[in-house]
Protein backbone atom coordinates (compact mmCIF):
# COMPACT_ATOMS: atom_id res chain seq x y z
CA UNK A 1 0.00 0.00 0.00
CA UNK A 2 1.26 3.45 -0.92
CA UNK A 3 1.21 6.55 1.27
CA UNK A 4 0.62 8.71 -1.77
CA UNK A 5 -0.52 7.79 -5.24
CA UNK A 6 -0.81 10.35 -8.00
CA UNK A 7 -2.31 9.61 -11.40
CA UNK A 8 -2.18 12.09 -14.28
CA UNK A 9 -2.58 15.09 -12.02
CA UNK A 10 -2.92 18.40 -13.90
CA UNK A 11 -3.49 21.97 -12.79
CA UNK A 12 -4.06 24.89 -15.11
CA UNK A 13 -4.34 28.57 -14.19
CA UNK A 14 -5.93 30.68 -16.92
CA UNK A 15 -4.27 28.70 -19.66
CA UNK A 16 -0.92 28.39 -17.88
CA UNK A 17 -0.22 24.74 -17.11
CA UNK A 18 1.46 24.71 -13.70
CA UNK A 19 1.38 20.95 -13.24
CA UNK A 20 1.27 18.87 -16.38
CA UNK A 21 -0.09 15.35 -16.15
CA UNK A 22 2.21 13.99 -13.47
CA UNK A 23 2.08 10.52 -11.93
CA UNK A 24 4.11 9.06 -9.09
CA UNK A 25 3.70 7.03 -5.95
CA UNK A 26 5.35 7.16 -2.57
CA UNK A 27 5.71 4.15 -0.31
CA UNK A 28 5.03 4.20 3.43
CA UNK A 29 8.02 5.43 5.43
CA UNK A 30 9.82 6.95 2.48
CA UNK A 31 11.40 10.37 2.29
CA UNK A 32 10.40 11.57 -1.13
CA UNK A 33 11.67 14.77 -2.68
CA UNK A 34 10.18 16.94 -5.40
CA UNK A 35 13.19 18.73 -6.80
CA UNK A 36 13.05 21.59 -9.23
CA UNK A 37 13.51 25.30 -9.76
CA UNK A 38 11.11 27.90 -8.41
CA UNK A 39 7.90 27.92 -10.38
CA UNK A 40 8.30 24.32 -11.57
CA UNK A 41 4.99 23.30 -9.99
CA UNK A 42 6.20 21.80 -6.71
CA UNK A 43 4.07 23.90 -4.39
CA UNK A 44 1.06 23.56 -6.66
CA UNK A 45 1.43 19.78 -6.46
CA UNK A 46 1.66 20.00 -2.66
CA UNK A 47 -1.41 22.21 -2.49
CA UNK A 48 -3.43 19.75 -4.52
CA UNK A 49 -2.31 16.81 -2.39
CA UNK A 50 -3.19 18.70 0.79
CA UNK A 51 -6.66 19.51 -0.65
CA UNK A 52 -6.23 23.30 -0.59
CA UNK A 53 -6.30 23.45 -4.39
CA UNK A 54 -8.59 21.53 -6.72
CA UNK A 55 -6.84 19.80 -9.61
CA UNK A 56 -8.02 20.53 -13.15
CA UNK A 57 -7.90 16.83 -13.91
CA UNK A 58 -6.37 13.60 -12.65
CA UNK A 59 -6.57 11.67 -9.41
CA UNK A 60 -4.59 11.38 -6.22
CA UNK A 61 -4.84 9.32 -3.06
CA UNK A 62 -3.24 10.21 0.25
CA UNK A 63 -3.18 7.38 2.80
CA UNK A 64 -5.77 5.69 0.63
CA UNK A 65 -8.17 8.66 0.74
CA UNK A 66 -9.27 10.35 -2.45
CA UNK A 67 -8.23 14.03 -2.38
CA UNK A 68 -11.44 14.98 -4.15
CA UNK A 69 -13.95 12.86 -2.28
CA UNK A 70 -12.52 12.46 1.23
CA UNK A 71 -11.05 15.90 1.91
CA UNK A 72 -11.48 15.72 5.67
CA UNK A 73 -9.90 12.27 5.98
CA UNK A 74 -6.94 13.46 3.92
CA UNK A 75 -6.55 16.54 6.10
CA UNK A 76 -6.69 14.56 9.33
CA UNK A 77 -3.98 12.20 8.18
CA UNK A 78 -1.44 14.77 6.99
CA UNK A 79 0.69 17.46 8.55
CA UNK A 80 1.89 20.44 6.54
CA UNK A 81 4.75 22.86 6.90
CA UNK A 82 4.06 25.60 4.37
CA UNK A 83 6.68 27.40 2.37
CA UNK A 84 5.63 30.73 3.89
CA UNK A 85 5.33 31.10 7.60
CA UNK A 86 1.90 30.34 9.01
CA UNK A 87 2.27 30.98 12.73
CA UNK A 88 0.36 33.51 14.78
CA UNK A 89 3.07 35.89 15.94
CA UNK A 90 0.94 37.39 18.68
CA UNK A 91 0.60 34.05 20.40
CA UNK A 92 3.25 32.08 22.26
CA UNK A 93 4.76 28.87 20.89
CA UNK A 94 2.67 26.88 23.33
CA UNK A 95 -0.51 28.66 22.31
CA UNK A 96 0.17 28.09 18.64
CA UNK A 97 0.59 24.39 19.36
CA UNK A 98 -2.50 24.34 21.56
CA UNK A 99 -4.58 26.05 18.89
CA UNK A 100 -3.48 23.47 16.36
CA UNK A 101 -4.21 20.58 18.73
CA UNK A 102 -7.70 21.87 19.38
CA UNK A 103 -8.38 22.35 15.66
CA UNK A 104 -7.42 18.74 15.05
CA UNK A 105 -9.49 17.67 18.06
CA UNK A 106 -6.61 16.10 20.00
CA UNK A 107 -8.02 15.30 23.48
CA UNK A 108 -6.79 17.64 26.23
CA UNK A 109 -4.47 15.33 28.18
CA UNK A 110 -2.89 13.86 25.11
CA UNK A 111 -2.55 17.35 23.68
CA UNK A 112 -0.66 18.68 26.68
CA UNK A 113 1.60 15.65 26.77
CA UNK A 114 2.39 15.75 23.06
CA UNK A 115 3.01 19.50 23.03
CA UNK A 116 5.57 19.16 25.82
CA UNK A 117 7.18 16.21 24.05
CA UNK A 118 7.38 17.90 20.66
CA UNK A 119 8.63 21.22 21.99
CA UNK A 120 11.39 19.23 23.65
CA UNK A 121 12.14 17.45 20.39
CA UNK A 122 12.65 20.74 18.57
CA UNK A 123 14.44 22.26 21.57
CA UNK A 124 12.01 25.06 22.20
CA UNK A 125 10.66 23.93 25.59
CA UNK A 126 12.39 26.70 27.55
CA UNK A 127 11.02 29.35 25.21
CA UNK A 128 7.52 27.96 24.93
CA UNK A 129 5.89 30.94 26.63
CA UNK A 130 7.58 33.58 24.51
CA UNK A 131 5.59 35.27 21.77
CA UNK A 132 6.45 33.89 18.35
CA UNK A 133 7.31 37.36 17.09
CA UNK A 134 10.45 37.20 19.24
CA UNK A 135 11.58 33.99 17.48
CA UNK A 136 14.29 33.71 14.84
CA UNK A 137 13.64 32.16 11.42
CA UNK A 138 15.09 28.80 12.41
CA UNK A 139 13.10 28.63 15.62
CA UNK A 140 9.90 29.40 13.74
CA UNK A 141 10.62 26.65 11.26
CA UNK A 142 11.24 24.16 14.04
CA UNK A 143 8.03 25.22 15.75
CA UNK A 144 6.09 24.76 12.52
CA UNK A 145 7.49 21.26 12.10
CA UNK A 146 6.59 20.42 15.70
CA UNK A 147 3.13 21.78 15.10
CA UNK A 148 2.70 19.73 11.93
CA UNK A 149 3.43 16.59 13.95
CA UNK A 150 1.06 17.28 16.84
CA UNK A 151 -1.89 15.33 15.49
CA UNK A 152 0.35 12.37 14.61
CA UNK A 153 -0.01 12.49 10.84
CA UNK A 154 1.01 9.52 8.71
CA UNK A 155 2.42 11.82 6.07
CA UNK A 156 4.23 15.09 6.64
CA UNK A 157 4.45 17.64 3.81
CA UNK A 158 7.43 19.96 3.96
CA UNK A 159 7.39 22.76 1.40
CA UNK A 160 10.92 24.16 1.09
CA UNK A 161 11.65 23.39 4.73
CA UNK A 162 15.02 25.13 4.88
CA UNK A 163 14.41 28.08 2.57
CA UNK A 164 16.18 31.17 3.86
CA UNK A 165 17.89 29.45 6.78
CA UNK A 166 21.59 29.63 7.59
CA UNK A 167 23.72 26.52 6.91
CA UNK A 168 23.98 25.56 10.56
CA UNK A 169 20.24 25.65 11.12
CA UNK A 170 19.72 23.74 7.89
CA UNK A 171 21.97 20.93 9.08
CA UNK A 172 20.11 20.89 12.36
CA UNK A 173 16.77 20.64 10.62
CA UNK A 174 17.98 17.88 8.36
CA UNK A 175 18.93 15.87 11.43
CA UNK A 176 15.44 16.35 12.86
CA UNK A 177 13.81 15.32 9.62
CA UNK A 178 15.89 12.14 9.44
CA UNK A 179 15.21 11.40 13.07
CA UNK A 180 11.47 11.80 12.58
CA UNK A 181 11.49 9.43 9.69
CA UNK A 182 13.68 6.91 11.51
CA UNK A 183 11.98 6.96 14.90
CA UNK A 184 8.37 7.54 14.03
CA UNK A 185 8.29 5.98 10.59
CA UNK A 186 6.51 9.01 9.16
CA UNK A 187 6.35 9.32 5.40
CA UNK A 188 7.85 12.62 4.33
CA UNK A 189 7.28 14.43 1.10
CA UNK A 190 9.38 17.53 0.68
CA UNK A 191 9.90 20.06 -2.05
CA UNK A 192 13.19 21.80 -2.50
CA UNK A 193 15.30 23.55 -5.03
CA UNK A 194 18.46 22.78 -3.09
CA UNK A 195 20.21 19.87 -4.78
CA UNK A 196 22.28 18.98 -1.72
CA UNK A 197 19.16 18.86 0.43
CA UNK A 198 17.43 16.41 -1.87
CA UNK A 199 20.62 14.36 -2.13
CA UNK A 200 21.18 14.15 1.60
CA UNK A 201 17.64 13.54 2.78
CA UNK A 202 15.62 11.77 0.17
CA UNK A 203 15.27 8.05 -0.48
CA UNK A 204 13.77 8.93 -3.80
CA UNK A 205 13.66 12.08 -5.85
CA UNK A 206 11.42 13.25 -8.66
CA UNK A 207 12.94 16.02 -10.73
CA UNK A 208 10.21 18.36 -11.85
CA UNK A 209 10.57 21.07 -14.46
CA UNK A 210 7.87 23.22 -16.04
CA UNK A 211 5.15 21.12 -14.51
CA UNK A 212 6.48 17.78 -15.72
CA UNK A 213 8.38 15.04 -13.91
CA UNK A 214 11.44 14.48 -16.07
CA UNK A 215 13.19 11.84 -13.97
CA UNK A 216 12.42 9.90 -10.83
CA UNK A 217 14.64 7.49 -8.91
CA UNK A 218 16.99 7.25 -5.96
CA UNK A 219 19.59 10.03 -5.92
CA UNK A 220 22.35 7.43 -6.43
CA UNK A 221 20.77 5.88 -9.49
CA UNK A 222 20.01 9.26 -10.98
CA UNK A 223 23.63 10.25 -10.58
CA UNK A 224 24.92 6.93 -11.91
CA UNK A 225 22.70 7.24 -14.93
CA UNK A 226 24.80 10.07 -16.27
CA UNK A 227 28.20 8.33 -15.84
CA UNK A 228 30.84 7.86 -13.17
CA UNK A 229 32.49 11.29 -13.25
CA UNK A 230 31.81 14.70 -14.69
CA UNK A 231 34.40 17.04 -16.19
CA UNK A 232 33.37 20.65 -16.59
CA UNK A 233 35.40 22.88 -18.89
CA UNK A 234 35.12 26.63 -19.33
CA UNK A 235 36.66 27.86 -22.55
CA UNK A 236 36.16 30.76 -24.94
CA UNK A 237 36.37 28.28 -27.83
CA UNK A 238 34.03 25.71 -26.34
CA UNK A 239 32.47 24.93 -29.73
CA UNK A 240 35.83 23.90 -31.22
CA UNK A 241 36.55 21.90 -28.10
CA UNK A 242 33.20 20.16 -28.46
CA UNK A 243 34.14 19.07 -31.99
CA UNK A 244 37.40 17.42 -30.87
CA UNK A 245 36.08 15.71 -27.79
CA UNK A 246 32.88 14.31 -29.20
CA UNK A 247 34.74 11.66 -31.22
CA UNK A 248 36.71 10.26 -28.28
CA UNK A 249 35.71 6.72 -27.36
CA UNK A 250 35.73 7.28 -23.60
CA UNK A 251 33.09 9.98 -23.71
CA UNK A 252 29.78 8.68 -22.39
CA UNK A 253 27.90 11.89 -22.74
CA UNK A 254 28.80 15.38 -23.87
CA UNK A 255 26.80 18.56 -23.35
CA UNK A 256 27.37 22.08 -24.57
CA UNK A 257 25.94 24.82 -22.37
CA UNK A 258 25.84 28.60 -22.37
CA UNK A 259 29.05 28.99 -20.44
CA UNK A 260 30.58 25.56 -20.27
CA UNK A 261 31.04 22.07 -21.60
CA UNK A 262 30.33 19.00 -19.49
CA UNK A 263 31.61 15.51 -20.19
CA UNK A 264 30.27 12.41 -18.47
CA UNK A 265 32.76 9.55 -18.39
CA UNK A 266 34.45 6.84 -16.30
CA UNK A 267 37.87 7.45 -14.70
CA UNK A 268 38.04 11.14 -15.45
CA UNK A 269 41.50 11.52 -13.92
CA UNK A 270 43.13 9.51 -16.74
CA UNK A 271 41.54 11.58 -19.46
CA UNK A 272 42.06 15.11 -18.24
CA UNK A 273 45.66 15.16 -19.46
CA UNK A 274 44.49 13.89 -22.83
CA UNK A 275 41.94 16.70 -23.12
CA UNK A 276 44.52 19.32 -22.22
CA UNK A 277 47.03 17.90 -24.77
CA UNK A 278 44.43 17.73 -27.51
CA UNK A 279 43.30 21.28 -26.97
CA UNK A 280 46.82 22.74 -26.85
CA UNK A 281 47.65 20.89 -30.11
CA UNK A 282 44.71 22.66 -31.76
CA UNK A 283 45.55 25.95 -30.06
CA UNK A 284 42.35 26.05 -28.00
CA UNK A 285 42.69 27.86 -24.70
CA UNK A 286 41.02 26.57 -21.54
CA UNK A 287 40.07 28.91 -18.70
CA UNK A 288 39.11 26.34 -16.19
CA UNK A 289 38.79 22.57 -15.92
CA UNK A 290 37.36 20.59 -13.03
CA UNK A 291 36.46 17.01 -12.20
CA UNK A 292 33.76 16.04 -9.80
CA UNK A 293 31.41 13.23 -8.95
CA UNK A 294 28.02 13.90 -10.52
CA UNK A 295 25.55 15.77 -8.33
CA UNK A 296 21.83 16.11 -8.78
CA UNK A 297 22.66 19.48 -10.34
CA UNK A 298 24.37 17.56 -13.16
CA UNK A 299 21.35 15.29 -13.42
CA UNK A 300 19.11 18.30 -13.83
CA UNK A 301 21.50 19.73 -16.40
CA UNK A 302 21.57 16.43 -18.21
CA UNK A 303 17.80 16.16 -18.52
CA UNK A 304 16.94 19.80 -19.17
CA UNK A 305 20.09 21.24 -20.73
CA UNK A 306 20.02 24.04 -18.16
CA UNK A 307 21.33 24.48 -14.66
CA UNK A 308 18.79 25.11 -11.95
CA UNK A 309 20.15 28.63 -11.49
CA UNK A 310 19.66 29.53 -15.15
CA UNK A 311 16.20 28.11 -14.93
CA UNK A 312 15.36 30.24 -11.91
CA UNK A 313 16.17 33.41 -13.78
CA UNK A 314 13.98 32.26 -16.65
CA UNK A 315 11.13 31.46 -14.33
CA UNK A 316 11.30 34.92 -12.85
CA UNK A 317 11.18 36.43 -16.31
CA UNK A 318 8.24 34.31 -17.20
CA UNK A 319 6.35 35.21 -14.04
CA UNK A 320 7.02 38.88 -14.68
CA UNK A 321 5.71 38.46 -18.21
CA UNK A 322 2.60 36.76 -16.93
CA UNK A 323 1.97 39.53 -14.47
CA UNK A 324 2.31 42.08 -17.22
CA UNK A 325 -0.17 40.22 -19.36
CA UNK A 326 -2.63 40.13 -16.49
CA UNK A 327 -2.44 43.86 -16.01
Amino acid at each position, binding site marked *: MFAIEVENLTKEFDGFVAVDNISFSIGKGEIFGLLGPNGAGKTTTMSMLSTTLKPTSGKAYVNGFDILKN*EDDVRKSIGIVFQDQSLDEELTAYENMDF*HGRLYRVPKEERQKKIAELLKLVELEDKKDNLVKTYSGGMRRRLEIARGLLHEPDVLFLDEPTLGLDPQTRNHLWDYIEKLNGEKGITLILTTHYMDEADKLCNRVAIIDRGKIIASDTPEKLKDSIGGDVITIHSPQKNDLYEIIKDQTWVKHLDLHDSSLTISLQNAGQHVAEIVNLSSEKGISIDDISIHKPTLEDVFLHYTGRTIREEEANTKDRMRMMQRVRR
Partner: protein
Amino acid sequence: MDIVYTIWLRNVKRYLRSRSRIVGSLGMPLFFLLVLGFGLNSVVTLPGMEHGYTGFIIPGIISMSVLFTSVFSGIQIIWDKQFGFLKETLVAPVSRLEIMLGQTIGGATASVIQGLIILVLSLLIGLNITSIPGFLIAIVFMVLIGLSFTAFGIAIASRMEDMHGFQLIINFVVFPIFGLSGALFPIDSLPSWLRSLTLLDPLTYGVEGIRYGLLGSSQVNPLLSFVVLTGFTVFMVVFGAYLFRKISI
Protein backbone atom coordinates in the same frame (compact mmCIF):
# COMPACT_ATOMS: atom_id res chain seq x y z
CA MET B 1 -18.75 23.91 19.03
CA ASP B 2 -15.21 23.26 20.33
CA ILE B 3 -13.76 24.57 17.07
CA VAL B 4 -15.79 27.76 17.28
CA TYR B 5 -14.53 28.12 20.85
CA THR B 6 -10.92 27.58 19.73
CA ILE B 7 -11.11 30.31 17.09
CA TRP B 8 -12.93 32.57 19.55
CA LEU B 9 -10.26 31.98 22.18
CA ARG B 10 -7.48 32.95 19.81
CA ASN B 11 -9.28 36.12 18.79
CA VAL B 12 -9.96 37.18 22.35
CA LYS B 13 -6.37 36.44 23.41
CA ARG B 14 -5.04 38.56 20.59
CA TYR B 15 -7.46 41.35 21.41
CA LEU B 16 -6.61 41.41 25.11
CA ARG B 17 -2.90 41.48 24.28
CA SER B 18 -3.11 44.44 21.94
CA ARG B 19 -3.29 47.20 24.56
CA SER B 20 -2.49 49.87 22.00
CA ARG B 21 -5.45 48.79 19.92
CA ILE B 22 -7.79 48.86 22.89
CA VAL B 23 -6.66 52.32 23.95
CA GLY B 24 -6.30 53.56 20.38
CA SER B 25 -9.82 52.72 19.34
CA LEU B 26 -11.19 54.51 22.41
CA GLY B 27 -9.78 57.75 21.07
CA MET B 28 -12.33 58.65 18.45
CA PRO B 29 -15.48 57.76 20.45
CA LEU B 30 -14.15 59.65 23.48
CA PHE B 31 -13.36 62.64 21.29
CA PHE B 32 -16.90 62.66 19.93
CA LEU B 33 -18.37 62.17 23.36
CA LEU B 34 -16.43 64.97 25.00
CA VAL B 35 -16.35 67.52 22.20
CA LEU B 36 -19.92 67.08 21.02
CA GLY B 37 -21.32 66.20 24.40
CA PHE B 38 -19.88 69.11 26.34
CA GLY B 39 -19.72 71.46 23.41
CA LEU B 40 -23.35 71.17 22.45
CA ASN B 41 -24.93 70.18 25.75
CA SER B 42 -25.85 73.70 26.81
CA VAL B 43 -27.05 74.94 23.43
CA VAL B 44 -28.92 71.96 22.05
CA THR B 45 -32.29 70.96 23.39
CA LEU B 46 -34.50 68.92 21.16
CA PRO B 47 -37.54 66.77 21.75
CA GLY B 48 -36.55 63.38 23.03
CA MET B 49 -33.60 64.71 25.03
CA GLU B 50 -34.69 64.57 28.62
CA HIS B 51 -31.14 63.63 29.57
CA GLY B 52 -29.45 66.56 27.85
CA TYR B 53 -27.47 66.23 24.66
CA THR B 54 -24.62 64.38 26.39
CA GLY B 55 -27.01 61.79 27.74
CA PHE B 56 -28.61 61.54 24.31
CA ILE B 57 -25.42 60.75 22.41
CA ILE B 58 -23.91 58.30 24.92
CA PRO B 59 -25.80 55.33 23.39
CA GLY B 60 -24.78 56.60 19.96
CA ILE B 61 -21.12 56.74 20.94
CA ILE B 62 -21.29 53.26 22.47
CA SER B 63 -22.73 52.00 19.18
CA MET B 64 -19.96 53.79 17.31
CA SER B 65 -17.34 52.08 19.40
CA VAL B 66 -18.93 48.66 18.86
CA LEU B 67 -19.41 49.34 15.14
CA PHE B 68 -15.81 50.34 14.40
CA THR B 69 -14.25 47.62 16.53
CA SER B 70 -16.40 44.92 14.98
CA VAL B 71 -15.86 45.96 11.35
CA PHE B 72 -12.14 46.16 12.05
CA SER B 73 -12.15 42.72 13.73
CA GLY B 74 -13.81 41.23 10.69
CA ILE B 75 -11.46 42.86 8.22
CA GLN B 76 -8.52 41.61 10.27
CA ILE B 77 -8.88 38.29 8.44
CA ILE B 78 -6.88 39.96 5.70
CA TRP B 79 -3.91 40.16 8.07
CA ASP B 80 -4.25 36.47 8.74
CA LYS B 81 -4.31 35.93 5.01
CA GLN B 82 -1.21 38.04 4.43
CA PHE B 83 0.75 36.64 7.35
CA GLY B 84 -0.14 33.09 6.37
CA PHE B 85 -2.00 32.10 9.50
CA LEU B 86 -5.28 31.67 7.65
CA LYS B 87 -3.72 28.77 5.73
CA GLU B 88 -3.08 26.90 8.95
CA THR B 89 -6.74 27.29 9.88
CA LEU B 90 -8.18 26.52 6.47
CA VAL B 91 -6.16 23.36 5.93
CA ALA B 92 -7.34 21.81 9.20
CA PRO B 93 -10.15 19.25 9.02
CA VAL B 94 -12.79 21.73 10.16
CA SER B 95 -15.59 23.42 8.26
CA ARG B 96 -15.32 26.98 7.06
CA LEU B 97 -18.60 27.75 8.79
CA GLU B 98 -17.08 26.89 12.17
CA ILE B 99 -14.08 29.13 11.46
CA MET B 100 -16.31 31.98 10.34
CA LEU B 101 -18.59 31.67 13.38
CA GLY B 102 -15.58 31.62 15.71
CA GLN B 103 -14.20 34.75 14.09
CA THR B 104 -17.58 36.47 14.25
CA ILE B 105 -18.18 35.70 17.91
CA GLY B 106 -14.58 36.63 18.72
CA GLY B 107 -14.91 39.99 16.99
CA ALA B 108 -18.27 40.60 18.66
CA THR B 109 -16.73 39.87 22.05
CA ALA B 110 -13.94 42.37 21.49
CA SER B 111 -16.34 45.04 20.27
CA VAL B 112 -18.77 44.57 23.16
CA ILE B 113 -15.87 44.92 25.61
CA GLN B 114 -14.90 48.09 23.77
CA GLY B 115 -18.48 49.38 24.03
CA LEU B 116 -18.60 48.52 27.73
CA ILE B 117 -15.45 50.56 28.34
CA ILE B 118 -17.20 53.59 26.81
CA LEU B 119 -20.27 52.81 28.89
CA VAL B 120 -18.22 52.73 32.09
CA LEU B 121 -16.46 55.96 31.17
CA SER B 122 -19.88 57.51 30.48
CA LEU B 123 -20.85 56.83 34.07
CA LEU B 124 -18.18 59.36 35.02
CA ILE B 125 -19.77 62.09 32.93
CA GLY B 126 -23.24 61.71 34.21
CA LEU B 127 -24.85 58.55 32.84
CA ASN B 128 -27.08 56.89 35.42
CA ILE B 129 -28.06 53.30 35.04
CA THR B 130 -31.40 53.08 36.75
CA SER B 131 -32.57 49.61 35.83
CA ILE B 132 -30.71 46.35 35.52
CA PRO B 133 -33.09 44.97 32.83
CA GLY B 134 -32.47 48.14 30.84
CA PHE B 135 -28.74 47.62 31.13
CA LEU B 136 -29.13 44.03 29.94
CA ILE B 137 -31.24 45.19 26.99
CA ALA B 138 -28.42 47.56 26.04
CA ILE B 139 -25.95 44.66 26.21
CA VAL B 140 -28.16 42.52 23.95
CA PHE B 141 -28.21 45.28 21.33
CA MET B 142 -24.45 45.74 21.61
CA VAL B 143 -23.98 42.02 21.01
CA LEU B 144 -26.22 42.15 17.94
CA ILE B 145 -24.33 45.14 16.48
CA GLY B 146 -21.05 43.36 17.23
CA LEU B 147 -22.09 40.11 15.56
CA SER B 148 -23.66 41.65 12.47
CA PHE B 149 -20.83 44.08 11.74
CA THR B 150 -18.03 41.59 12.40
CA ALA B 151 -19.75 39.34 9.87
CA PHE B 152 -19.99 42.38 7.60
CA GLY B 153 -16.21 42.90 7.99
CA ILE B 154 -15.55 39.24 7.21
CA ALA B 155 -17.71 39.48 4.11
CA ILE B 156 -15.66 42.46 2.91
CA ALA B 157 -12.35 40.81 3.86
CA SER B 158 -13.30 37.70 1.89
CA ARG B 159 -13.41 39.84 -1.22
CA MET B 160 -10.35 42.00 -0.55
CA GLU B 161 -6.80 41.05 -1.52
CA ASP B 162 -4.94 43.29 0.93
CA MET B 163 -5.38 46.15 3.36
CA HIS B 164 -5.20 48.88 0.69
CA GLY B 165 -8.96 49.14 0.47
CA PHE B 166 -9.33 49.54 4.21
CA GLN B 167 -9.50 53.36 4.23
CA LEU B 168 -12.04 53.23 1.46
CA ILE B 169 -14.29 50.97 3.48
CA ILE B 170 -13.95 53.09 6.62
CA ASN B 171 -14.62 56.38 4.86
CA PHE B 172 -17.28 55.40 2.38
CA VAL B 173 -19.09 52.61 4.16
CA VAL B 174 -18.56 52.63 7.90
CA PHE B 175 -18.69 56.39 8.49
CA PRO B 176 -21.93 56.83 6.51
CA ILE B 177 -23.46 53.94 8.45
CA PHE B 178 -22.51 55.73 11.66
CA GLY B 179 -23.50 59.17 10.45
CA LEU B 180 -26.94 58.13 9.24
CA SER B 181 -27.79 56.12 12.31
CA GLY B 182 -29.27 58.77 14.54
CA ALA B 183 -26.39 58.34 16.94
CA LEU B 184 -25.85 62.10 17.10
CA PHE B 185 -29.33 63.49 16.38
CA PRO B 186 -32.96 62.53 17.03
CA ILE B 187 -34.35 61.00 13.87
CA ASP B 188 -37.87 62.31 14.50
CA SER B 189 -36.72 65.88 13.86
CA LEU B 190 -35.31 65.08 10.42
CA PRO B 191 -36.96 65.92 7.09
CA SER B 192 -38.99 62.92 6.06
CA TRP B 193 -36.75 61.86 3.12
CA LEU B 194 -33.72 61.80 5.41
CA ARG B 195 -35.68 60.02 8.07
CA SER B 196 -36.55 57.19 5.70
CA LEU B 197 -32.88 56.96 4.82
CA THR B 198 -31.90 56.55 8.47
CA LEU B 199 -34.51 53.84 8.80
CA LEU B 200 -32.71 51.89 6.10
CA ASP B 201 -29.54 51.96 8.17
CA PRO B 202 -29.38 48.84 10.37
CA LEU B 203 -27.27 50.67 12.96
CA THR B 204 -30.21 53.00 13.67
CA TYR B 205 -32.03 50.10 15.30
CA GLY B 206 -28.96 49.27 17.36
CA VAL B 207 -28.58 52.86 18.56
CA GLU B 208 -32.26 53.13 19.35
CA GLY B 209 -32.23 49.81 21.16
CA ILE B 210 -29.31 50.81 23.36
CA ARG B 211 -30.93 54.19 23.93
CA TYR B 212 -34.11 52.50 25.09
CA GLY B 213 -32.11 50.27 27.43
CA LEU B 214 -30.01 53.02 28.98
CA LEU B 215 -32.34 56.02 28.91
CA GLY B 216 -35.71 54.30 29.00
CA SER B 217 -37.06 56.08 25.93
CA SER B 218 -36.45 55.81 22.20
CA GLN B 219 -37.92 56.99 18.95
CA VAL B 220 -38.20 53.56 17.41
CA ASN B 221 -40.20 50.87 19.14
CA PRO B 222 -37.62 48.67 20.92
CA LEU B 223 -39.34 45.49 19.81
CA LEU B 224 -39.15 46.62 16.20
CA SER B 225 -35.48 47.52 16.73
CA PHE B 226 -34.81 44.07 18.12
CA VAL B 227 -36.56 42.27 15.28
CA VAL B 228 -34.90 44.33 12.53
CA LEU B 229 -31.42 44.10 14.04
CA THR B 230 -31.74 40.36 14.68
CA GLY B 231 -32.87 39.87 11.09
CA PHE B 232 -29.91 41.91 9.86
CA THR B 233 -27.52 39.90 12.05
CA VAL B 234 -28.79 36.58 10.72
CA PHE B 235 -28.57 37.85 7.16
CA MET B 236 -25.03 39.20 7.63
CA VAL B 237 -23.76 35.99 9.25
CA VAL B 238 -25.21 33.88 6.44
CA PHE B 239 -23.87 36.24 3.78
CA GLY B 240 -20.45 36.47 5.46
CA ALA B 241 -20.27 32.69 5.79
CA TYR B 242 -21.18 32.32 2.13
CA LEU B 243 -18.40 34.65 0.97
CA PHE B 244 -15.89 33.23 3.45
CA ARG B 245 -16.55 29.75 2.10
CA LYS B 246 -15.23 30.90 -1.25
CA ILE B 247 -12.11 32.61 0.07
CA SER B 248 -8.97 31.34 -1.63
CA ILE B 249 -5.44 31.32 -0.28
